[in-house]
């Protein structure tokens, strides 16, 4: 081995190890983003069928992301609206939603994690929702609260963010 290559070998190995560690041990924000992606993929059909077992699996994946006392207050232009309280209500609503909108597609963007401490976090994001029914996609901003329990992050609250306060 050439002397230059030998000199570069050790720093290269250290940098590679650091990158590997970064992948293996994600930051809290990365953990939160992974929970978001899991929830998104569970809600979104993404070409999957909504038959019995597959539907159950998707709903199961979604509930794994939620606290038992999760609160959901959703009011999206185009008809998706409702207040849900507790994981059982969410489970029932998610199953109904998947059957009502089998082509439901959700994409997440502009994810911002804030107020992050050891046990809680606040996330704002923009969800682009396509129900597969008439009309184009609807973009809606959401605010989510996360809670950490036994080392894992869970969604404890979801609420739509409206640009204007009406009265």
């Amino acid at each position, binding site marked *: 081995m050439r002397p230059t290559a030998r000199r570069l070998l050790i720093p290269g190995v250290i940098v590679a190890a650091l990158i590997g560690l970064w992948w293996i041990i994600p930051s809290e924000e990365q953990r939160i983003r992974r929970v978001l992606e899991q929830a998104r993929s569970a809600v979104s059909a993404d070409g999957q069928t909504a038959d019995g077992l597959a539907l159950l699996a998707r709903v199961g994946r979604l509930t794994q992301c939620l606290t038992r006392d999760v609160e959901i207050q959703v009011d999206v232009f185009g008809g998706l609206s409702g207040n849900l309280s507790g994981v059982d209500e969410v489970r029932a609503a998610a199953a109904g939603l998947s059957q009502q909108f089998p082509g439901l597609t959700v994409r997440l963007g502009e994810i911002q994690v804030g107020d992050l401490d050891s046990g809680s976090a606040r996330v704002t994001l923009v969800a682009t929702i396509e129900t597969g029914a008439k009309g184009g996609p609807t*973009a809606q*901003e959401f605010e989510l609260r996360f809670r950490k329990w036994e080392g894992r992050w869970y969604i404890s609250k979801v609420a739509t963010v409206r640009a*204007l*306060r009406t*009265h």
Partner: protein
Amino acid sequence: MSQPNDPPVPWWQVMAIGRNPRTTLVRLAITLVLVFVGFRMSIQPILVQGISMQPTYRDGQRRFLNKLAYRFAEPIRGDVIGIREAGKQVLLLKRVIGLPGERLRIVQGTVLINGEPLEEPYLLPPTNGVRNPARWNVAEVELQGDEHYVIGDNRSMRQDDHYFGIASRNRIVGRLMNP
């Protein structure tokens, strides 16, 4: 750099790409980057969708938003502004009618600011038998320090179908450039 013995550069080449093409290319790239960054920071192109700002702005029109307009100034009454609706790309286009600290209500379609009727020349006279403004009613609201009351110009539509209300200062992106 050119040497005294180098053949002279033809005038057309000097006009087109300069004496030193490489330097010209670098300058051009820097200029393009600066223009692009400046444009992104100061101007946002928008496509008007919906009917809430008719007749001033119609569905499908293209306009530009000046994102620097409120960097050193505050929105004033009558400004047509862009309000962040969902992320950075989806904006609401509305007109400012109420400013921080003011009391506002709407009685039978007339906007009252601190009890005084507001002149709204941008509203059209009655069309198709529908009065513009129609007879909307909104209970009195007192605007806080960072709140602006915004509404569309199309007051001939049903009040329930028109999305209007109080916008926080931090959601206001900029002012429409070409009203």
